């Protein structure tokens, strides 16, 4: 077959996809809406991280995180969250295969990892607070160092907690056969996003 014909077929396919009466990407509205929401939510985090970097580049000195925070501990948090994305993907895979019990187990593992992450985050916060960090200031340097930390990790933590509740509801619905694999996939998109955003937060706050 000539490339011209292949091109024409592809174009025909594209026209058919966009010509109405169907979803052009064969996406359910729920999944499409979740994608759009995540794009939007990414802008919220982007704006907050811009806030962090503006404050940081505008201040004479930025404290050395190695001396203040336990970076191994935070690295462990990151690994746990990334692992939870894997179990989430496995849960979606199982649900697509129709293995409901298995899907629920993987979901439980994901929720457990999420709770562990949130717990470690809380430990990290209380440690930081005990050392004297506040929204108004901190012993190591400019106030921005501590308040950007609290606001940004706080918003992310709220996303994690919301995600735990979301996954909990989904686990229940899957167990009772009320939700489709598609519904779980949508939840998986959200969880993957929470994970992805953390990588950016982690590098901005702890690593760089």
């Amino acid at each position, binding site marked *: 077959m000539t490339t011209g014909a292949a091109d024409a077929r592809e174009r025909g396919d594209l026209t058919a996809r966009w010509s*109405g*009466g169907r979803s052009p990407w064969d996406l359910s509205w729920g999944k499409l809406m979740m994608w759009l929401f995540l794009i*939007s939510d990414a*802008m919220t985090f982007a*704006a907050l991280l811009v*806030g962090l970097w503006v404050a940081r580049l505008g201040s004479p000195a930025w404290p050395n995180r190695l001396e203040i925070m336990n970076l191994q501990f935070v690295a462990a948090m990151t690994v746990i969250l990334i692992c939870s994305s894997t179990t989430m993907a496995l849960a979606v895979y199982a649900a697509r295969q129709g293995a409901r019990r298995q899907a629920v187990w993987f979901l439980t593992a994901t929720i457990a990892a999420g709770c562990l992450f949130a717990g470690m985050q809380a430990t990290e916060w209380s440690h930081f607070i005990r050392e004297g960090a506040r929204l108004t200031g901190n012993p190591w340097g400019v*106030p921005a160092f501590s308040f950007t930390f609290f606001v940004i990790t706080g918003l992310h933590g709220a996303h994690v907690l919301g995600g735990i509740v979301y996954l909990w509801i989904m686990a229940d619905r899957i167990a009772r056969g009320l939700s489709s694999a598609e519904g779980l996939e949508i939840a998986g998109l959200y969880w993957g996003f929470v994970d992805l955003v953390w990588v950016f937060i982690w590098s901005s706050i702890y690593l760089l």
Partner: protein
Amino acid sequence: MDTPAAAAHEAHAAHPRESFIRHYIFSLDHKTIGKQYYFVTLFMAIVGGSLAMLMRAHLASPERGILDPGTYLQAATMHGTVMIFFFLTTILTGAFGNVLIPLMIGAGDMAFPFLNMLSFWTFFPSVLILLASFFVPGGPAGNGWTSYAPLSAVPQASPGSGLGQTLWAVAILILMISSLFGSLNFLTTIINMRARGLSMGRLPLTIWGIFITAILALLSFPVLMAALTMLLFDRTAGTSFFIPSGLLVGGQIVPHNGGEALLWQHLFWFFGHPEVYILILGPMGIVSDVISTFSRKPIFGYTAMVLSLAAIGFLSFLVWGHHMFVSGMNPVLGATFTISTMIIAIPSAIKTFNWLTTLWQARIQFTTALLFAVGFVSLFVTGGLSGIFLAASPVDLYFHDTYFVVAHFHFVMAAAALFAIFAGTYYWFPKMFGRMMNEPLGKIHFVLTFLGIYGTFYPMHFLGTHGMSRRLYTPSTYPFLASVQPLDIFISGAAFVLGAAQLIFIFNFFSSMLRGPRAERNPWHANTLEWTADSPPPHGNWPEPPVVYRWPYDYSVPGAAEDYLPQTVPAAPAYASGHGGGEQ
């Protein structure tokens, strides 16, 4: 028939009679939600308009002191806030978007009607919070609709920086969430639920306008949400995102330090410039459709219209710095923003020429809707030209924060969007309420509004070039402004005419709603899908989902029996080749 559109249709086909509350208050029907939005935003327009009248009364004779200085700033702030956020933004998306999207794309309802209802019921509390801020100690916010930090970040900074400013931020934060719900629904619905045969290349321009608006909202509103969150933390929790070190307020050093006041301006305008286009892309679409219908001609340059909408949408994210030329930015950066801003004039001009070409040599039907649509073009050109002056940073150093800017944005945004809203209201009223509006009253309303707008805002260019800064409480006490005080009196007079003319509209609107003559399905002989549904359409809109065979602009097709061919008319051999532009 298992397409999403058809499935949604089936879901809506069978609906038992609903209780009053389900039907009128917590309705899931996009048309009812749209009307709820319309009524609330209309009320907010009256609030915002009354504040403007107060300001003009004061400026007609500043020495009488009708308002005291703090109250004047609060009136200005709340006027801008109400008009931009709670009237224009919300009526265009909440009211027109909700009513028109499903009807114009042949869907039974939105993708997720529950979220749509939630959107209205998040919007409503934000209105209440904003209105409540008028009654708190210290009064409402008074630092401008842009609420620049650190004035807005330090509660002691000014009379309008107290609790009212906090409520301002909370109200807008909630409004942004409500808009986000709306945008998610709009985009999903337009992408997934178009009727069979309605390709993107056959979408009416109104829907294209709302579609791109929703994308802009999706990307820019979260940035304002983040900025408002930071602002609220600064105000209530002691952070210093926007409060620099060593700030003196009332002779005392503020305990915050290390913040960056300019960060607020960057975040605000990164949202703010797309926001002003959020207020104009929908109107551009509405005006295109109204002009084409009443010119009985296809819109000229459909593809160029779509591409220029998209180009404006894209460029609007690259120009925010033109609001900050005087903030001490690097001149190279300033030049960059000058260039990117001037580039926006190109797609804007393309649109203008296309509207004029559509009107050119047409058998125009001078309905009220058409008059307002043509009025829109006039206002947009007037305001666009002053925009090009302002875009040149050396010029803007002089004009920034003067009445020249006030004139610019009232023409290009406020009045233009208002005219498109009127055009849309006179045009779609029969579909929304099943009755016709009174045309003679409409025309009187148009003439007075048109003259009122030009009379009010055109002289402001001269005040600006004279050096009168905006938000100035007592211009008459400055010797160099004494000579323009008569102009200020004239402006106030024109503004009162303008305000009074709106009473005609309100009377016409409500009396037509109750007693107007019944509307037929398609009173304007228009092509788009909403006119194939009943007036007003029932829940679910059509008994059967419509099927689309052509683009929406087949007016005066040679060989056709009538001068319009609705999108649902199959292509008959006689005039099948009448138009090719609708295909892609």
